[in-house]
């Protein structure tokens, strides 16, 4: 694993919000890197800077200072649209609240990123079906989110995230809204995607049990990295 390419590199990244007296520092000069094929968990209490880090990795937010290199691109120099293109081409997102489009079938939800990539209709359908198969939902492709359980909705969200074959899958508390059985199903699915398809996964969680599925855990505290553990899979 050590000879794999580094795809995410934080160099002394800091982030602060507000101005003057009200200025708060969410991140104080954080440096780390993540290699291709890793499954990294980011842990920490709320306000520790883990979500800020996640948003920055996902190109949804920009550093106040420091450098963020994604696949040899300096993200901090990019504008809003250029960052959207990075998201479109290289990243997949899974959120705590699933964030599927309502009244839209699972298949259409999964097709959505492909539409913005201008993939032609027929190819789009087959790619979306394949992604839904990977997450084990081939039987409910025409169901809308309201007709699916929480675990199934999160699987649709994962299918939507992987349908574009992203370099990195970003999961923000993916099991936060699920019961323990469903949570384990989702974690097993993520582990499978990481192992079988080699997708790099970065996951934010506050549950130690879920973090145990990853190959490495980075602990955040008060805006800096407290500890970084490399470990074998559970």
């Amino acid at each position, binding site marked *: 694993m050590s000879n794999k390419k580094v795809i995410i590199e934080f160099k002394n990244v800091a982030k602060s919000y507000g101005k003057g007296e009200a200025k708060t520092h969410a991140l104080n000069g954080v440096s780390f890197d993540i290699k291709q094929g890793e499954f990294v968990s980011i842990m920490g209490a709320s306000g520790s800077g883990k979500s800020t880090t996640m948003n920055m990795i996902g190109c949804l937010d920009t550093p106040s200072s420091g450098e963020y290199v994604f696949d040899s691109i300096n993200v901090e120099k990019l504008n809003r649209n250029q960052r959207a*293109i990075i998201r479109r081409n290289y990243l997949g997102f899974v959120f705590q609240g699933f964030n599927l489009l309502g009244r839209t079938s699972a298949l259409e939800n999964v097709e*959505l990123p492909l539409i913005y990539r201008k993939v032609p209709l027929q190819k789009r359908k087959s790619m979306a079906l394949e992604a839904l198969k990977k997450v084990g939902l081939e039987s409910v492709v025409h169901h809308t989110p309201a007709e699916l359980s929480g675990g199934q909705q999160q699987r649709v969200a994962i299918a939507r995230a992987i349908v574009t074959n992203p370099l990195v899958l970003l999961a923000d508390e993916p099991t936060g809204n699920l019961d323990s059985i469903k949570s384990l199903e989702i974690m097993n699915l993520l582990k499978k995607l990481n192992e079988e398809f080699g997708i790099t996964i970065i996951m934010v969680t506050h549950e130690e049990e879920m973090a145990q599925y990853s190959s490495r855990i980075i602990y955040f505290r008060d805006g800096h990295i407290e500890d970084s553990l490399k470990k074998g899979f559970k």
Partner: protein
Amino acid sequence: MLSNAFLIAIKEIRKNILRSILTILGIVIGVASVIGMVMIGDGTTANVQQGIQKLGTNMLTLRVGQERRGRAKSSNSARPFENADIATIKSEISNVSAVAAENSSNINVIYSNKSYTSSVVGTSNDYFIIKNWNLSSGRIFDESELNYGTASCIVGSTIVKQLFEGEDPVGLKLRLKNFSCNVIGVLESKGAAAFGRDQDEIIITPLQMFQRKIQGNKDISSIIISINESKNIKQAKKDITLLMQERRDIKPDEDDNFHIRDMEDLLSTMTSTTKMLTYLLGSVAAISLLVGGIGIMNIMLVSVTERTKEIGIRLAIGALESEVLLQFLVEAIVLSTLGGIIGILLGLVIGNIGVSVMGLPLIINTQIIITAFIFSTFIGVIFGYFPARKAAQMNPIDALRYE
């Protein structure tokens, strides 16, 4: 990129069909009511204009006595006109195409065992020209009938209906007062005039006969004059006034003991009244268009929570701000245009039913249709687009968390 946005927009509209219907409902009702109301208003105006034109175009009416508003001062005391006045007007005034006396009286007329009270007019053949009367059967008066005052008459369609049960009465005899009268012609129907008076309830007789057998004297109380072109009416009015002042020996410091009215005065008064009606109906409808606009705004604002989340999702998975905006713009345009088109069709249907029920002519006012359409589309686009623009400029993370 445009076809892509169009595709996504159509998908969203179809998926959220209830929201889409609610959005366009306001536009539909607004546009439909404006078009329907204006059609009814325009129909009323046209109806009044046509009614007045049926009374006779380019017509001047010369009457004895002063024109008075409200209660008329007894005009009987004023000197009546004479037969010679008619001939003089015809020969001395330029641009006059026809002049006729119009003596009339309401008389009980009898045929067989039926009786009916009708307006009977004593006049000459010029009367048919001035009042735009055509005959549906029979003939107009000949020279000898006019000169000797033969008891001949030409009847309106109401008389045919009431006394002759719709049969052609030419050749039959009608009883007026204490003498009988040969029916020689039937007038074409004109229908009710603008004031609801039945114009077809009329019997036309030669002036000579009318003066002798009905009136009992040689007086003429009213003369109607037809002017060849409407632009000459004002001048003719002046010329006739001068002529009559001279013939009736009116000194410069005396008031006239006659007056002339033209149909233009009447027409403009009546049309300005009905135009007011159109404006009134139109503005009531415009308020409903505005309320419709507010309805659109409400639906758009209510759905903005849901839509903000949608925008956040789209942005997070890699949509550009411009792509999201284009999608919302296309959605707003499609919905508003659709609403506008349905509104126009519905408005035309409502207007059509309205005018046919009220028996008005059908007038389609393209200008109002276009204005209502543009206005509604504009409202739809503004209220659909700007909340979306605000959302699309948000940070995707904030948009996703928006509650």
